[in-house]
């Protein structure tokens, strides 16, 4: 029994638990929006697009996070802008913009080799997170959550029907800038702590799972955020016993939930669909 409580006795574990829960929650919130508009791979793209920022920050002797945030924001803004101006689809836009940023980063790193291994940015290290980073992540996540809680209905309207949003007096451009700024800030914060692999999963899977479970956006948000928070917390906890690989555990948990929803979801799951077709056939006979 007491053995199960052991993780809570260590400061570093406690920190890892609440930081990942917070990051998991806010990323899941963003995932609900991204999934709707074909932006799901945005997290992946931003994970790569921050590399030139880090390289630049290293050359100038600035904090990595600042550099990462600047290029992350540029990349997100660039994608939103290209999408706005052209009629290219989201996947093409993401592909073009993020490869450009990633290539610039690789080029900069190869011309001017940097001491920090890019891998360490990509993998993150939640168990070894220091107090400053933890605080930074906490502030960014908390602020983002508050803003999202206040503005989710406006954002939903902009994502659903931009022209109607304008008709009721909402400025879609301003909201999109707000959204992509939050996205860049959160991915960068999450990258530092939990690593790219986890960020990518965190901004896709919870939203996708919730989508299978409900037809109402408000509920979708609740399901998505709960799932993100709980899996991240539990994942960090379990990883103590498995020794490391926090990101991996969290993603595995989320995937299991996704598969469960995929099979058992009351309306959109495989079984439910089979069942209602079968019922319809029976009634026909």
């Amino acid at each position, binding site marked *: 029994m007491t053995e199960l409580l052991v993780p809570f006795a260590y400061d570093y574990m406690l920190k890892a638990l609440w930081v990942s829960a917070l990051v998991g929650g806010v990323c899941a919130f963003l995932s609900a929006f991204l999934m709707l508009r074909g932006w799901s791979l945005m997290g992946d793209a931003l994970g790569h697009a921050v590399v030139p920022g880090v390289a630049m920050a290293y050359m100038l002797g600035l904090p990595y996070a600042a550099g990462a945030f600047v290029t992350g924001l540029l990349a997100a803004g660039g994608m939103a802008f290209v999408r706005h101006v052209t009629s290219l689809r989201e996947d093409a836009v993401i592909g073009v913009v993020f490869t450009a940023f990633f290539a610039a980063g690789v080029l900069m790193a190869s011309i001017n080799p940097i001491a920090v291994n890019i891998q360490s940015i990509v993998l993150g290290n939640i168990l070894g997170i220091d107090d400053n980073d933890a605080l930074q992540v906490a502030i960014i996540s908390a602020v983002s959550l508050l803003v999202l809680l206040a503005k989710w209905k406006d954002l939903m309207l902009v994502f659903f029907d931009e022209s109607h949003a304008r*008709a*009721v*007096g909402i400025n879609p451009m301003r909201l999109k800038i707000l959204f992509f700024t939050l996205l860049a800030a959160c991915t960068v914060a999450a990258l530092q702590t939990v690593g790219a692999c986890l960020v990518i999963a965190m901004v896709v899977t919870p939203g996708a799972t919730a989508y299978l479970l409900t037809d109402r956006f408000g509920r979708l948000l609740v399901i998505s955020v709960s799932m993100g928070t709980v899996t991240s917390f539990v994942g960090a906890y379990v990883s103590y016993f498995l020794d490391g690989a926090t990101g991996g555990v969290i993603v595995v948990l989320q995937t299991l939930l996704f598969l469960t929803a995929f099979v058992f979801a009351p309306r959109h799951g495989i079984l439910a669909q089979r069942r209602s077709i079968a019922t319809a056939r029976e009634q026909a006979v």
Partner: protein
Amino acid sequence: MLQRVDDRTADAVSVVPAIEVSHVTVSYPNGHQALRDVTFSLDAGGICGLVGINGSGKSTLFKTLMGFIRPTTGQVRLNGMPVARALKTNIVAYVPQAEDVDWNFPVLVEDVVMMGRYGHMGFLRIASRADRDAVDSALERVGMSAFRKRQIGELSGGQKKRVFLARALAQEGRIILLDEPFTGVDVTTENAIMELMRELRDNGHLMLVSTHNLGSVPDFCDQVVLINKTLLAAGPTQTVFTQANLEKAFGGVLRHFQLVGANLHDDDDPRGVTVLTDDERPLVFYGEQSNLRHATGTPHPPEDAA
């Protein structure tokens, strides 16, 4: 329910025209000029039909009124305000010809109609009793109450159209822009919508409605704007919606039939009947004004072949 807003603003509105379009020219990015030097104005409390052939610029005019397209020259004023400011004050409702939304979006019919109420809500967009009542009555009016818990994509084409009409109604805008609200909608619904528009007009709302149902225009429009890239005629239905003007607007594109005397009836009424039709509902003229037989209308293909 729908007239609550009216009482407050009725005085202020009657002073300036609700819609004022002056010398508006619109070109698309591909260089195609869709509207040229269009000028007209409409007062509050009316229903105005917008009539013209395919490609005559009706939808373009709506988009310009909503500020989605900027006119290259000229200006638009709504209730005396520039478009951007008018939209901020939530006085304009708009139902486009075709909704360009993601039909798989996780929202129910009632959620979509509730979006019409956002302009009436506070910062957090929390629905009040009044907002819920407006949604209920709007759904009732378009006959979609039974479908309120459906996901928006799980509807037929006409039903989807009715939901977006309901959203525009729930918005209770002073100015309501409807781009072909009757296409793909059954007759019962069409009549219900016209009835509703008359009520809204009596409460001081202005509706601009594009339509190809020429036959129903005299029924429900008190004003008509005829366009074909440029303004052909605008004014009260009785003086503007005449055969001569329609000939100008449609040329040989209209199908017309003329039935005279014994072919038609065997009583003493000597009048002939002229039937003009663009699509569903034909327009019928009785009597002498049928000089149509001599019309040498040349077919008017939309001229963007250039």
